[in-house]
Structures are given as C-alpha cells and as structure tokens.
C-alpha cells in the first residue's frame, strides 16, 4: 500500500503572536482567552492553510493531529499554583480545563472550523513523529481528505530551573530556550495536488534502543517542535530532496522526501 504524504503548506511560529498577526482571519477580541501555546499553534496553522490555498475560517472536514510535548505546562502550573495559593476549595477550574493536553485541539478546531478527526500525542521530542503517523492513519483510512499536523511546546519554568541548577543530573538536555516557544504546522494530503509543495517518500517511526539511534547532536532537545522546525527549514532550502532523522529517548524518526517547488518568503 502506498502511504506517501504530500505537504500542501507549512509554517512555523517562533514568538508570542500579537493580536494583529491574526487580523487577516480573526477579530482580536476573539483571541482574548486563548493561551500562548494555542495561539502559537493557531498562527502556524493559519499560515500553513493559507500557503496551501485552503480556506482558513470556512468549515471543512479536515483532520487535526497535534503533537504536544508535556502539554500546556503554563496552565498545569497555574492550576497547581491556585491550589497552593488559594487552597483546593478555590483552585481554578479554567486552568484545569486548559491544562488538558487536548485543549489546544479545541482552539484549532473552533477557530479553523475543522470537523474531521482530532487526536493529540504527547511524548516530548517524538510527538512530531507520532503526529505524522496519526495523520497518515487518518488520510489513508479515508477519515479526512487533508490533515493539519501542528506541533508545539509550552514554556517550562521547572525544566529551565532543573537545567540551570542540576545540569549534571540531567541525562538528556532539557534545553528550554526560545525553541520551547516554537510551533510548526503542516497541511498534508494523501495524494499530489496542484498545491503540493513536497512529498514525504519514506517515513519510519520506531522504538529502538538508544544505542542504535543515530547520533544527531545537541540540536535535538526533547521538545515536540524541534524536528518539525527542522523540517520547515529543510523545505525552505534549495534542492529537491530532504532527509531528516530525529531521535530522542530511544525513539527514532526517519523521514525522506522530495520538494516540487522553489520556496519564496
């Protein structure tokens, strides 16, 4: 069975979006209650849809496959802060609802009017591989004509502190710099269309013993977005082929493909 994936559009977001970033699609007031992680995912997703020539706000049967590292940590910490500061009786239900890994899925499906399948995977750096695998399942089982893959991380003050205070104790680098604010999104199709920008020809996502994982250097912190950002960068470079290997904690993603276009900013 041919299980190729075609990239129709892609985009990344490196900073906290400003309300005006969304002005082509949404009124600023609609975004008032959207948390940072969801807003960054949403901006990447809007840009990827637009690049693919797809309607951003119109209702569509597209699927959504999210890869989130440790979830919306800012909301989880906010909920724990509310217990510590105000007690169990007054802890914040809003922060609790926002702490659920799948909460950004609601934001994206609501704003982008997505009505297809929606699944979130949460396994740090390997979340992107898992999200691609899920997208392939949705597309090749006919559950959706297109699937939006969106990947991102929430700024993590605890890991930052761990990294700073106990570097020798941290087996894997928990680098939480600007990368932790990044998100990326890809619109995928199971077949080539006039809008296709690239084709993923080989995709393998497997657990192997860390000893057998190729060394990929320091670039790979255990962050969901890191390999996705790397793929965006590869797609923007000249040349017709890309080859991406990401590994973390014993799980490897091997991804190869070809591009059909010359990227223009």
């Amino acid at each position, binding site marked *: *069975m041919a299980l190729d994936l075609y990239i129709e559009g892609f985009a990344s977001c490196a900073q906290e979006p400003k309300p005006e970033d969304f002005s082509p699609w949404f009124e600023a007031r609609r975004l008032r209650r959207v948390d940072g992680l969801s807003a960054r995912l949403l901006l990447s997703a809007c840009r990827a849809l637009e690049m693919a020539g797809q309607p951003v706000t119109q209702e569509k049967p597209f699927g959504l496959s999210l890869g989130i590292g*440790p*979830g919306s940590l800012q909301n*989880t*910490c906010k*909920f*724990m*802060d509310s*217990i*510590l500061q105000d007690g*169990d*009786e007054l802890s*914040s*239900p809003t922060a*609790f*609802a*926002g*702490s*659920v*890994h*799948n*909460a*950004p*899925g*609601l934001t994206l*499906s609501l704003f982008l*009017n*997505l*009505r*297809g*399948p*929606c*699944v*979130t*995977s*949460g*396994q*740090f750096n*390997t979340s992107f591989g*898992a999200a691609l*695998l*899920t997208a392939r*399942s949705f597309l090749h*089982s*006919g*559950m959706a004509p297109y699937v939006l893959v969106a990947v991102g991380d929430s700024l993590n003050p*605890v*890991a930052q*502190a*761990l990294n700073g205070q*106990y570097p020798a*104790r941290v*087996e*894997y680098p*928990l680098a939480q710099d600007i990368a932790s604010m990044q998100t990326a999104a890809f619109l995928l199709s199971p077949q080539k269309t006039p809008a296709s920008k690239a084709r993923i020809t080989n995709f393998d996502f*497997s*657990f*192997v013993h860390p000893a057998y994982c190729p060394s990929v250097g320091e670039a790979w912190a*255990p962050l969901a977005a890191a390999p996705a950002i790397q793929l965006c960068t590869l797609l923007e470079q000249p040349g017709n082929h890309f080859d991406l290997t990401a590994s973390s*904690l014993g799980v490897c993603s091997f991804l190869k493909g070809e591009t059909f276009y010359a990227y223009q900013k």
Partner: protein
Amino acid sequence: MKPACCIGGAGVICACGAGKDALWNGLQTGRSCFALPAGRVNSALADRYPVFLIPKEDIPAGRGSLSLRYFLTAAQEAFSQAGVTPQQLAGLCAGVCVGTSVDASFHCFDSYARWTKNALEEKDVDILQDYFSSSTAMAVAKEYGFTGPVQTVVTACASGTDAIGLAASWINMGVCDAVLCGGTDEINLIPYDGFIRLLISSKEKCKPFSKNRAGINIGEGAAALLLLSRSAAEKLGVSPAGFVLGYANACDGYHPTAPDPQGKGLARAISGALKQSGLHAADMAFINAHATASQANDAAEAFVFNQLLAGVPVCATKGVTGHTLGAAGAVEAVISLLCLNHGQVTPTWGFEEEDPALHLVPVTQSEVISKTCAVSCSLAFGGCNAALILGGRHYGA
C-alpha cells in the same frame, strides 16, 4: 471476509479488581471499590467526593508510575489470554499505542510545590527528570523490547478509544504485525480537584442516563488489548478473542469541556466507524455509551443514539468502574468484548429514573444478545469524539 485486525487477548484492572473475571463479576453484581480517597489524595475535598479506586490488595508493586504498573498488569493478562509471550513477538514488527491523561501530565505536585519555595530536594530532581524523559508508551515498549512505533495518545477521556483505533489502523495499513494498545490512568490530586472545581463531580454514586443524575465519579484503571494482523495470529497459533472492525474520531469545535448538545462530532465519529466496518446500526448488539452521568454528556449521547442507532440497546458501565479518564475507552472496549463473548449485555448500575428529556432507557437487567458486534464510544474535553466497532470471537462465523 475475515477482518484484518484481530484481538489476540485482553486484560484489565479497575475498581472491580484485577482481571476480566473480577470485572465481569462486578458488572453482574454492581459491586466495586467506591470510597473516599483520603490517604491516596491529599485534598481538603477528599472527605466529600468518593471515587472508584483499584482495591488496595490489587495495586501492583514495582517500578514506575501507578499508571504504568496498571497497564503492565493488564498487558500481562492480554498476553496470557492470547497464549503468547512478548518474546514471541520479537521477530515481528510490534508497536505500542497507549492512551492516558493523568500519566502524561505534569502532575508532580509535591516537587512542584517545593520548587515554588526554592526548596527542591534531591529526590525531586529524579521525579522531575523521570517525567521529562519518558512517556507511558515508551516505558511499555522498553519493558517488552518492542521495536515498532510507539505512541502516547493524550486525547483526554477519548484516549483509550483512540489508542485502540489508531493501533488497528497500524495493523490495517501493514505498518505493524502486532500492537499492544489500550489506556491507563491513576487518580491523583490534579484531576480529583479539577473535576470537582468544574462542578461536574458527584458526591453520590453516578447515575448514568437518570433524570436525577448529578455528575461523574472519577476512577482509575487500565485495559490492554493485544492486536494482531490475521497472518500474525495464524503464525502464532492465536485464536482471536475478537476483532476491531471500525474506528473513527471527529471533533465538535464547540466548547472546552462540554459536548455539542446535538452531538454532531459524536454522530460523525459513529457514522465513520460504521462506514469503515461496512456494517449498519441494525447489525449492532448494543452500544457501550460513554455515559459519564453528567447532564450534558448523557443528553448529547442520547440525542445521537436516538438519531443514528434507534432501537439498539444502550449500556453504561461507569456506575461500576467510575470514569477512568484516559483508560475509559479501553476499559469499555474490554467490557464490550466480554459482553459479546458471553452473549449478554450487562445492566446499567446507577440508573434510577427515566429522564423524559432523553427518550432513552438504558439496559437495566442483563439481556441475552445474539448479534456479534457492538459500538463503544468516548467523548472528551477539547470536543473530541471517538467510536469503535468491535466484533466478538464469533463475528463472521
């Protein structure tokens, strides 16, 4: 034609105890461990809201989080039923797909509390490091030496259903020969306080589909299914305990914690799963409803069942297991399988009084069934809806 995705074996642990026999007994008698969690959950609210706990004597010892230990306990039973060992799968492409909610979340509350006071202890570093360097599915894959895909599904309360459905798609696409899948979750302070503060927890035992339903009781547990491709099952000499016939998921895009009142996403998920299975409503022996006993959930489900699956018996089992969150869909898939293989659908414990607004009365006494497939569905925060069509061991015979 025989289905491609076989269930080689299944296992479970929940408030009824460890194993499918304990669960089946609980489903027949309505008895399980429903208690205040004082001692397990350090909350000022812990003396008012009971939950469904795994009995103390059944809590597995060992390393790792409770959720991981629960899942490994269930997995062991799944292997045992299939009559295979993890080592026998070494030559095959074997993957792991586990749904969870609590186990993937940053719930290191005590360590976090010390961190906020700048009083982190040595043990906290290990706890936090453990959290940031693993996931449930990876830990399971390591335990059994599986080298196929690994995925931790975190679609809140639909995670277990999604994990089984995605695992089945790996088998159907030829990505894997075998997948250990299911769901697991434990009770801790965060979901305990969180659901109470959302005002959807009940102080009484939950009453699915009842007029006087007053909310959910959270619970804990795990369920594991060993899925095999037809050729892998034949090669291993495994006689299937059942089949995964269809799966679909669809989002509401409606509200962070409430379902679409007309269950539009759920309707698409059920329709999609039926379409994938090539079956129709009339082929279904019963529906295993999500039925949390919250006002909104049960109303949305009833609306959809009346529209799409009118006349199909509905059973709801959270009155015995509680709402096991990320494990719920998997626990209920195992319940569905048990019902199909026993030829009997179990009563809805907790149901008291018909709600005229729902136009739905669930099964209240054990009923004999002759059809060999059923629907099991889950709804989740974030507006996710997922449905499985499962076949029993006699499906297609």
